[in-house]
């Protein structure tokens, strides 16, 4: 199939970027979206042009490193699917595809489609852990955790940290990302003890990084590859209010 690409090219953080046009004529529908970009890059290299820089690593939807805006949607047209798990059979012969980086004040562009998501690490550093040093752990079965509680904690813990929630949010809010970690740990007895301090610190860090506020549009959960629910945001707000008193 034939695909016309309009890809954001930007040398580095300081220089302005712009869309560049590329025409691919023999795209195989079984290719993944990233393999389609590989094919373009191979052509560019052979023409001695700088290839398109984009983020990726595992290519199986779990590391969270890939992620671009495809025709204005985070990770492309399929709901709850990472960019690396999207295949060209989701497009039609002759389609024009706009490819842009995840955009947010807190995610500055590094080069082309690569953005800096280190703000997420700093949010976790603010309190996204239990203070369990190596060596002191009690026997695992001495702490019983109900099946449903463990499953609910897992639902939140499944976040891959890709940033699609931020990219898709009109306020560039990191509420879903932050809330997922707060809920994961607050639900479990091991994490409950530190939950007040945790929620205050993580929310403060999220604001410091320049992420916007959540205005409950719920756009994030539509794109989230792990189907993390916005109910966690409600839980975060509840934890936060509780922590103030």
């Amino acid at each position, binding site marked *: 199939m034939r695909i016309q690409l309009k890809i954001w090219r930007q040398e580095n953080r300081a220089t302005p970027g712009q869309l560049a046009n590329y025409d691919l004529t023999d795209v*195989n529908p*079984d*290719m*993944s979206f990233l*393999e*389609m970009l*590989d*094919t373009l890059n*191979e052509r*560019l*290299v052979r023409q001695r*042009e*700088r*290839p398109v820089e984009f*983020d990726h*690593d*595992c*290519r*199986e*939807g*779990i*590391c969270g490193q890939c992620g671009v805006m495809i025709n204005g949607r985070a990770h492309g047209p399929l709901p709850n699917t990472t960019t690396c*798990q999207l*295949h060209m*059979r989701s497009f039609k012969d002759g389609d024009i595809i706009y490819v842009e980086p995840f955009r947010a004040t807190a995610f500055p562009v590094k*080069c082309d489609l*690569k953005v800096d*998501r*280190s703000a*997420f*690490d700093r949010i*976790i*550093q603010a309190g*996204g*852990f*239990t203070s*369990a*040093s*190596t*060596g002191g*752990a*009690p*026997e*695992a*079965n001495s*702490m*019983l955790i*109900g*099946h449903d*509680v*463990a499953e609910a*904690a*897992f639902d939140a*813990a*499944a976040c*891959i*940290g890709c940033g699609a929630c931020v990219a898709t949010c009109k306020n560039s809010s990191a509420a879903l990302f932050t809330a997922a970690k707060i809920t*994961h740990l607050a639900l*479990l007895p*091991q994490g409950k003890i530190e939950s007040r301090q945790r929620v205050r610190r993580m929310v403060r860090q999220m604001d410091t990084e320049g992420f916007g506020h959540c205005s409950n549009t719920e756009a994030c959960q539509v794109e989230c590859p792990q189907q993390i629910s916005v109910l966690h945001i409600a839980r975060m707000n509840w934890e936060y209010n509780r922590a103030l008193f």
Partner: protein
Amino acid sequence: MLNARTPEGPLEEKWRHYRSTAKLVSSANRGKLHVIVVGTGLAGSSLAASLGEMGYRVTCFCFQDTARRAHSVAAQGGVNACKNYKNDGDTIFRMFYDTIKGGDFRSREANVYRLAECSANLIDQAVAQGVPFAREYSGYLSNRSFGGVQVSRTFYARGQTGQQLLLGAYQALMRQVAAGTVMLFPRHEMLDLVVIDGKARGVIVRDMDSGAIERHGGHAVVLATGGFGKIYYLSTLAMGCNGSAIWRAHRRGAFFANPSWTQIHPTCLPQSGDYQSKLTLMSESLRNDGRIWVPKKQADDRAPNDIPELDRDYYLERRYPAFGNLSPRDISSRAAKERIDAGFGIGPLKNAVYLDFSRAIREQGKPKIEEKYGNLFRMYQKITGVDAYREPMRISPAAHFSMGGLWVDYELMTTIPGLYALGEANFADHGANRLGANSLLQACVDGYFIAPSTLPNYLANEIKSGPVAVEHPAFVEGETTVRRQLEHLMGIQGNLPADYFHKMLGLILYDKCGLSRSQAGLKEAIVEIDSLRTQFYADLLIPGGANLNSELEKAGRVADYLELGELMCYDALTRNESCGAHFREEYQTPDGEALRNDQDFAFTSAWEWAGAGREPILHKEPLVFECVTPAVRSYK
């Protein structure tokens, strides 16, 4: 002869004895000691966090944009630990024996025993961190049996055990970063090791965003850089996985053990075109209910559902009636290759076999199969567009895990004093074949429990050495070497991208140093790799500059792969026996089973770098079995 420095005493006393007698560093002195940890997977994160908690100063690197994306994240199946929660007779000794036997009696007894011994603690540690393992309704931890062992010792967190364990370790690491004990540098690639007066003293790294070359000094250097299975190009590994850190340490004097032992996993999605960049692993659990077959007729072009039962060859059930579709990985992969090579492969490229659920669906009903494997069937459909409830899956073997790696002694120290290797980057515990769910365990145990006990034994002698000065001539030399190499690669300005050479190397290795090897094939491969390397240095093309440039990153990795691939062939060529994943065509029984030779080959091959263009030098660590008797692994 290589000395593993295994402690004296009975097997079950060795580790306790070691820990009771090893040197310690008092808490007042730990802040004066600086450890460099390369890698933030389970092995690297857990070690860096643990050392930070103890009060050491740590500098840590990874090539991803955050520590949490190390490829440990991709492990699905689970992690083994001998807790005997099911009261099914599991003991440390039994787990030790299963691991030694699974490795086809090519691993070191004392290390494997220690792995089993520390396994229970790991589950405690992970639970304390908040890892949401599967639970029974009663609130107790759940576990299952995995990989053909008779007891239930595999703990899991849905199909994302690696991710959850890694997030636990990552969060512990983040806590130490916030506390200021660990300095973390993501997007930094280690490109050389600095050795001063025979001791590892630091690394040269490249900031992959700015292109800056940096020197970092420390009193010990730990490589936890994961597996190098990506050398085959098509593999289950991530795109950035590499052998560069351990290879460059090898070139500085660290011996490389059993480099050719690669686990090739039987249930991966087959290649569908030459654009393909990776082979996705489909969980092995599918083999519990799926039946593997190929048509009885060569190049049978009928759709699978049109091929009647009589015309199907369920070759695993035929050859291995006792284990059938659940035969171990090495055996299943080899049997698939045998059929594919004989012209019975299926799919457009004739490179796959069927994994068929029709009988399971008939007998158990679709809802039951959906409950067990729904997410895998969905993933399969996402990638291939095929509905596996209606049509069998197509699967094929793919490179997956490196049993080989840097040689380490009992303390996980390499042959360079002060240089350690942890996790998949070392060769230690899995022998010639790794058992499912044992490598998450190994990476964690190495990082949480072993290295934090063995490093002080070395560091205690470094308290007086003062900060490591990166102005030392060895650092200057290291930096110059790295800069020259990068300039050299950029300067070739030929016509072909790095991926071209990587793919070619992958083809050679799959063909001649993959599932089966022969003397003639390996000799050819050595010549072919040599000429591919010559072509690489004549015709490589890297556009762009020395700053952020993924083509430059790839080229450096491929340059190392082209040397490592050759060493793999030498390794396979000198081992005149078949064991585990290493199957030499000359050494098989009349019915095609592996023929091990304990008389002549009960040793670990540890290779020394002899310089560019010279044949590597083989050293041997004899494997002495005091507690088990090597037996023939039979699955018939």
